[in-house]
Structure formats: C-alpha cells, structure tokens
C-alpha cells in the first residue's frame, strides 16, 4: 500500500531542510561545538543516555557471547599465554612497587611534588555511525573530565582526546580519526606528527628533518609538548624500516597500538601540563574556558 504521492510539495520542503542543514553545519563548525549547538548536544546526550544504558544491559552480554564464540579456537592458547604473562607481570609489579616506594621516599626527602596523574575510569557508552570513528564515554564534567584530556586504554596506550564534554558524558576523538593529530617522538628521538587516517590498521607519520631513519618495531610515544597530553604514552608501532627522503619522513608504515573498536573501558587522564613538564619549550597559557592547556579541537 503506497500513499498518494500527489499530496504535498516535497521539493519545497527539501529545499527548506537542505538550507537548514547547511545553516546548522556552518553554525556548528564556526562555533567549534560551543554555544547553542553544545546545548543541543548536551540535551540530546541527556535524553539518549538512559536509553543507551538500558540497551547496553541487553546488548553487551550478547556481543560478549558472540565475541567469545568468534574467538573460541584461540582462547585456549590465549589463556596459556596470559598465564605466563601474568607471572612475569607479577614479578615486575613487585619490583615496581619497591621502586615506587623508593621514589616516594626520595621525593619526600627532596620535597618534590608527586608525578601521578589523576585518572577516571570510564565506559564507552556509544559509538558513531559509519564513517564516524568517535565515541562517547559515560563520564563528563561532573566527574572532572575536561576538553583536551587524553584517553588511554588499560595498557596506557593513547586512544584519543576528549573533544566535547557534557555533565555526564564526553565525546572522544580517537587517534585513528581523520581529524586527529598527535605530536610524537620516534624511537631515535625525532619529533613527528601522527595523523589519523580513519583506519584501524594505518596511521600517517610526518617527521621533518629527521636525524635517524625509522626502524620496524619502533614504538612512537607522545612528546608531551603543546597538546595537553603527557609525554611517554605509547601510540603506535613502526611496521617497516623507513629512510628519510628529501629531508623528511612521510609514511603510512605505522600502525596504531590499539583499536578503539574493541575497547569497552577507558581511562581519562586528568592531565594539565605543569610548568615543569616541558621546561625547554614555551608552554601555552592556561585558557579560562575550562579546556586543558594547549589543546585544539578540530
């Protein structure tokens, strides 16, 4: 049964809605997600959160079950590997505990401030649709999350950066997102910029004036400069040797260390660059709008 298509004038409605869409887009992009559009997003998040949470109560066990079935064959081998890894990690943890206690003692003697970064554990509440790599977490302003906070996984691998924050939720733009850029330091110490490509398998890396080539297996870590992101966080791994060409390295032979598609829980680092964090570089002024210093939103 198809309704009478002669009713109404869809072309006029189409023109009106297209114009409205362009106005909304222009307004949202120009206001960089603040102002009225931020209010709309806050309202939408507040409305959708209970529905999403209720749905996840049903959905998560099903997806976990599917995940278990899909990985059934590899679970036994994985279990054995994890047992041996657990033993190793326990030994390392005991050693690290001793070192931490020693470090605390020395800091107390020398009257140095602690270097622990406060963090918040959050759960991924929802993801975007196709061609949208961002995701929403269930912690926001009320929990102390601010724009620019880095988000890591359980292994301290950088997943992304908080782009928008609402009272009880926040939107994270992942490192793999096509609008994402993170300053990193190579294994040899050269500075570069890691660019998301929207792929869970590849990232782009640009190093200007490198002193050394890249070697397969090198881990790229955050530089800790100008981005509100602490230095030393692992981000990506170099897949193959890359030699400088024309005074630069511009390659996609880099893979992210973690795939946010598989993440369920994340850790938000409440980091704000301390004056002594980057002693050799000029630091950005602390903004007055509640954002972390040195951050920019795409």
């Amino acid at each position: 049964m198809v309704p009478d298509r002669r009713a109404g004038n869809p072309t006029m409605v189409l023109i009106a809605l297209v114009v409205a869409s362009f106005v909304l887009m222009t307004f949202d992009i120009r206001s960089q997600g603040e102002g009225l559009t931020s209010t709309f997003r806050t309202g939408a998040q507040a409305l959708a959160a209970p529905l999403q949470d209720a749905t996840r109560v049903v959905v998560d066990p099903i997806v976990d079950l599917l995940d278990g079935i899909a990985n059934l064959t590899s679970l036994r081998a994985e279990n054995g590997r994890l047992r041996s890894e657990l033993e190793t990690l326990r030994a390392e943890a005991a050693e690290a505990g001793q070192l931490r206690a020693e470090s605390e003692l020395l800091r107390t003697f020398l009257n140095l401030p602690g270097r622990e970064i406060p963090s918040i554990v959050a759960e991924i509440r929802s993801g975007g649709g196709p061609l949208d790599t961002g995701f929403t977490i269930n912690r926001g302003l009320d929990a102390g999350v601010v724009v620019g906070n880095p988000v890591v996984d359980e292994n301290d691998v950088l997943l992304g950066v908080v782009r928008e924050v609402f009272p009880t939720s926040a939107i994270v733009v992942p490192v793999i997102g096509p609008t994402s850029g993170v300053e990193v330091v190579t294994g040899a110490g050269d500075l570069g910029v890691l660019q998301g490509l929207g792929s869970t398998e590849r990232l782009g890396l640009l190093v200007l004036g490198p002193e050394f080539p890249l070697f397969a297996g090198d881990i790229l870590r955050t530089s800790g400069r100008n981005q509100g992101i602490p230095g030393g966080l692992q981000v990506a791994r170099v897949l193959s040797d890359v030699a400088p060409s024309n005074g630069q390295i511009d390659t996609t032979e880099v893979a992210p260390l973690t795939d946010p598609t598989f993440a369920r829980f994340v850790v938000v680092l409440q980091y704000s660059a301390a004056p002594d964090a980057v002693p050799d570089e000029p630091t950005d002024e602390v903004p007055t709008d509640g954002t972390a210093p040195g951050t920019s939103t795409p």
Partner: protein
Amino acid sequence: MRARAIFWSLFFLVLAVVLQTTLFSRLAQFRIFPDVVLLVVILSARWLDPDPALLLGFTGGVAVDLLGTTPLGLRALVMTLVAYASVKTVDRFDLNPISLLISAVVLSLLGVVLLAVLGTLFGQGSLAEGNVVRTILLVPVFNGILALVVATPMRRLMTASNAGAML
C-alpha cells in the same frame, strides 16, 4: 492512518538511533556495520507522505549528529536527500522482495557516498579514511539484508494492513 504511520516511523527512528549507537557500534568489531537509521528513513518513505518522510530523514540525521562527532547538520542533510530520493523513486519499484533489496542497496549506497563526499567537504576527511571503500561497499549490503527482515513488520505496523502483497 497517517498519524499511525508517523507514530511508528518515529518509534522505529528512535529505536534505530539507539541501536546504531550501541549494538551496531559494538558489532563493528566483527566488521558488521549497517546504517540502520538510514535504512529506517529509506523504508519509512514507502509508507509515509512525502513531507513527513523528508522531516523524518532530517530528524534522524540531526539525532545521529547530536550523538556523534560529525558536524550538526551533516547527516541531516544526507538523510534528507536520501529520503527525497526514496520518495521520488518508491513508485518505480515493484512491491516485491528483490525490488526492495535493490532499492535499499542503491539508496544506502547513495547515502554513504554522499556522507563521504560531504564529510570531506566539511573537513571530516571522510574520503581520506582508510576504510572508506569497505564502508561504502558494506553498509549498503548490510542494509539490504536488514531491509528484507524488517520491511514486513514495519509495513504492518505503519499501514495496519495485512492484506495484499508482502510489501
């Protein structure tokens, strides 16, 4: 009849938005990523009048924009255009499953391509994404399969008619 169709189309739209941002965002790890909001817009246009069909597309797009990271209005524009295409082409397809499959695949393909192109124009870098080709090809396929599953219950609820052809 019209009020009933509008009510159920809005119900399916809300359901689709919630499922898209929860269930299907998690199923993406299995490389399963339909765009169910787009699908609801395409299918609802079969049983709604043209104006409500376009407004449904716009509303669905705005809802996804508000809950995602794309600029507000981007998906609204895409879904409005797809709803218009759906309204304009619904009479050209015979009411049978094969026709439904083809129309869902073609209109979904139009939607994803538009999203990629407009996303790139508005600074989202969608066409530069490493997975863009896979997404453009797979979303219509999954939408086509889902259309075969959900079209009949949607028609029954929106038209209150069990008689006649399957679709």
